């Protein structure tokens, strides 16, 4: 069977630092933080009182009011980002063979706010189960790609991948393979998450996973910094149009980059702690390079998982040094989570977009908030600290790792 080449022809982003792909990129390059005190609910009794919320979002500006009401925020975000990506790709929806267009989406949780609201309603009642008929269809994680296909009539493969914070990198890799194997011509992929809720904040706080730097939210997400104390919860969506290379060429589409390959692995170690030797993380980057048919020396840029947790950041950098050897110090390594916070199931999507835009613009966005050296980090590594760097990025890797030990990695190449 002939393995097809796959390219990226459209992008869409709805993030804490910008509500479109272009605003997002401007935010990244200028080193903008998306963190601020939470506006959605009263945080007085919460250990962490800030997050990276999407700002100035009114779903009815994009989606018919009645339709918007039937969607949880994670599905609204998905719809808005996917619409931007479809428009960006200039896909002619009357000409494309919709039987061969899929939607493969990532979400770590799904409609958490809907779930929370319905359970609270029940708990506040007299025990009579008066659940809204939209409760289940709004909450389930697969409804985001379902809504996208219903709107546009895409009748190809349609599902959601769930692997916590690796979810949307899993989705991108599945989308890549679907087109490679000839099952589809075009796949709308990416991911979305909307977990800045009382249950989300309370749950992650209970795990001691979140930063508690309440006095200075915008400097709380500080990957690789000696004073990092946990991740900052973010929300939003990223969407990518993946397309078979000849299909894209034939319609004269703008090509951002080639999706050169992907990798998957599991730590097989602990529910939430990263493997101390980063074994699964080493494996996933190796898998990815092999899948793309590239050598370690080919990689110019790595957008790390780098969530700003004490253990995870060091383990990932150690793994990079192991995989890339002496070439590691030549790579522009960054963590854009320093600006966006951690979008969980949408992280892989918005970070893949950041990597692709680094190729497009020849600029690597910074890892902001670095003030204190961490003695456990190799000082020779270029972590793109505090300021964006110019770099002719020909090959960019994007790492994401999820609770449960799920590791996923995707690799993009200039074309």
């Amino acid at each position: 069977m002939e393995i097809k080449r796959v390219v990226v022809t459209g992008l869409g982003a709805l993030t804490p630092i910008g509500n479109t792909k272009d605003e997002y990129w401007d935010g990244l390059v200028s080193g903008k933080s998306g963190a601020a005190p939470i506006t959605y609910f009263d945080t007085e009794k919460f250990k962490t009182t800030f997050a990276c919320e999407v700002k100035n979002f009114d779903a009815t500006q994009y989606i018919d009011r009645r339709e918007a009401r039937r969607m949880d925020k994670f599905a609204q975000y998905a719809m808005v980002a996917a619409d931007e990506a479809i428009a960006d790709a200039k896909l002619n929806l009357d000409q494309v063979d919709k039987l061969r267009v899929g939607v493969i989406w990532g979400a770590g949780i799904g409609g958490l706010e809907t779930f929370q609201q319905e359970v609270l309603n029940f708990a506040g009642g007299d025990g009579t189960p008066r659940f809204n008929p939209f409760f289940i269809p709004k909450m389930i994680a697969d409804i985001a790609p379902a809504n996208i296909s219903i709107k546009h009539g895409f009748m190809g493969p349609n599902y959601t991948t769930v692997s916590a914070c690796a979810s949307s990198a899993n989705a991108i890799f599945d989308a890549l393979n679907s087109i490679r194997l000839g099952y589809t011509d075009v796949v709308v992929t990416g991911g979305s998450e909307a977990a800045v809720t009382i249950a989300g904040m309370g749950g992650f706080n209970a795990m001691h996973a979140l930063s508690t730097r309440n006095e200075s939210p915008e400097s709380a997400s500080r990957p690789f910094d000696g004073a990092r104390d946990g991740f900052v919860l973010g929300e939003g969506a990223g969407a990518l149009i993946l397309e078979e290379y000849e299909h894209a060429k034939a319609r004269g589409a703008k090509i951002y980059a080639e999706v050169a390959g992907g990798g998957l692995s599991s730590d097989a170690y602990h529910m939430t702690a990263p493997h101390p030797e980063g074994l699964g993380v080493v494996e996933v980057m190796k898998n990815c390079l092999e899948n793309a048919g590239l050598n370690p020396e080919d990689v110019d840029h790595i957008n790390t998982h780098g969530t700003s947790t004490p253990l995870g950041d060091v383990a990932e950098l150690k793994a990079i040094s192991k995989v890339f050897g002496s070439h590691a110090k030549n790579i522009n390594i960054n963590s854009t989570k320093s600006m966006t916070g951690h979008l969980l199931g949408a992280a892989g999507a918005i970070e893949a977009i950041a990597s692709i835009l680094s190729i497009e613009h020849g600029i690597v966005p910074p890892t902001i908030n670095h003030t204190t050296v961490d003695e456990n980090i190799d000082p020779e590594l270029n972590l793109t600290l505090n300021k964006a760097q110019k770099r002719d990025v020909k090959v960019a890797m994007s790492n994401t790792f999820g609770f449960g030990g799920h590791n996923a990695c995707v690799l993009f190449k200039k074309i």
Partner: protein
Amino acid sequence: MSDIASRVKAIIVDKLGVDENEVVAEASFTNDLGADSLDTVELIMEFEKEFDIQIPDDQAENIATVGQAISYIEAAK
């Protein structure tokens, strides 16, 4: 318009996202106002909440138009 009728219509306008002028007594939720099976269940629940009444499933099946909803609620109150 009675108080009940105006409250019923307000719920329908809000939940189905339709124009107030379309919400006439003979309008069918599904055929005229674009409701699907989930919307109709939600409407019944909203009527129950708004008017503090119980509408059993077998009777809810007979409430298919705006006018039928208003008459049912007027009788139940």
